[in-house]
């Protein structure tokens, strides 16, 4: 049985590197919430409950524009669909009990997955995995709350802060692109996605995101079908 003190220290150590990224990103989100005119505690609600970094930035823009719930559902589905594939390698079978599994899946963020499915965590037990997830959750929600509180105190509106979202997706795109070895990187897929996004922006600016995702998925399926037809 691990003592509370040791458990906390272990959680801190396991999640430390991720915290370096999650806290500042959470703070950037909190500052955006504060500057949007919403009460500061909405940053805690959004980041604590939705708890999906990239979706929250889009979500904030959508609710400020009073987007229909259907649009929010479709956006959440498309942005977070990648999580479906985490089930293939996240060690949920080591987490015991119904409540543990509920939290383990609820807090299955990109960062939590990245650590829990990594080679270093191969020996982690269920409780250690849940503690790690709770720490990452706390970094994000805590960072967002702190950012929102600081954002309300800062009097002048900071121009150009919204670029943090662009930078986040750019960095995630570069990381995803560079994950395989150099020879197996999907240059055509990345270019295809850029073309789909620009085409959607020009043809269907009101539904750009949905149109771009649909176009890109269709293009990938077509590419696979053509690749198969080739001898």
């Amino acid at each position, binding site marked *: 049985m691990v003592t509370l003190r040791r458990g906390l220290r272990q959680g801190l150590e396991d999640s430390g590197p991720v915290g370096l990224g999650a806290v500042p990103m959470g703070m950037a989100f909190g500052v955006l919430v504060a500057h949007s005119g919403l009460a500061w505690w909405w940053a805690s609600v959004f980041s604590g409950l939705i708890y999906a970094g990239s979706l929250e930035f889009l*979500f904030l823009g959508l*609710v400020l524009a009073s987007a229909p719930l259907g649009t929010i*559902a479709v956006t959440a589905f498309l942005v977070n669909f990648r*999580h479906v594939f985490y089930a293939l390698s996240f060690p949920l079978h080591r987490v015991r009990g119904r409540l543990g599994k509920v939290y383990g899946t609820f807090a299955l963020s990109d960062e939590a997955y990245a650590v829990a499915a990594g080679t270093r965590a191969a020996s982690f037990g269920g409780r250690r995995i849940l503690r790690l997830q709770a720490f990452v959750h706390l970094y994000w929600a805590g960072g967002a709350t702190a950012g929102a509180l600081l954002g309300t105190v800062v009097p002048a509106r900071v121009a150009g802060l919204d670029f943090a979202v662009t930078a986040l997706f750019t960095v995630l795109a570069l*990381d*995803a692109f560079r994950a395989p070895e150099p020879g197996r990187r999907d240059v055509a897929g990345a270019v295809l996605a850029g073309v789909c996004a620009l085409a959607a922006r020009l043809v269907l600016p009101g539904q750009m995101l949905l149109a*771009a995702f649909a176009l*890109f998925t269709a293009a990938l399926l077509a590419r696979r079908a053509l690749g198969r037809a080739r001898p």
Partner: protein
Amino acid sequence: MPDTGYLLAAVATAVAVTWGLRALPFAVLAPLRSSPLPAYLGAAMPVGVMVILAVYTLRDLDPGVPGRAVPAALALAFTVAAHLWRRDAVLSILGGTALHVALCSTVFAP
């Protein structure tokens, strides 16, 4: 400003979809594992999804309005270069954003 009822409904919607995507696949793990199409899409989609999201955040930029397009282009170039060089997400994001804020509030201030 959106009202509280709408905001709570929006949060509930996003939570339900996100949690569903995270939890349900564990229940249907076996067929997903053996099917080649989800495996192909799972491998090919992430890069493209992130590229589309990055372009989406820049959708309101107009090359004819350099006061907004130039700072974004410079900050984007910085973010990409910094990330290719150091591979440090925090540095790339904070650096790019700081540069964008600095440009928008000084040289390109409206």
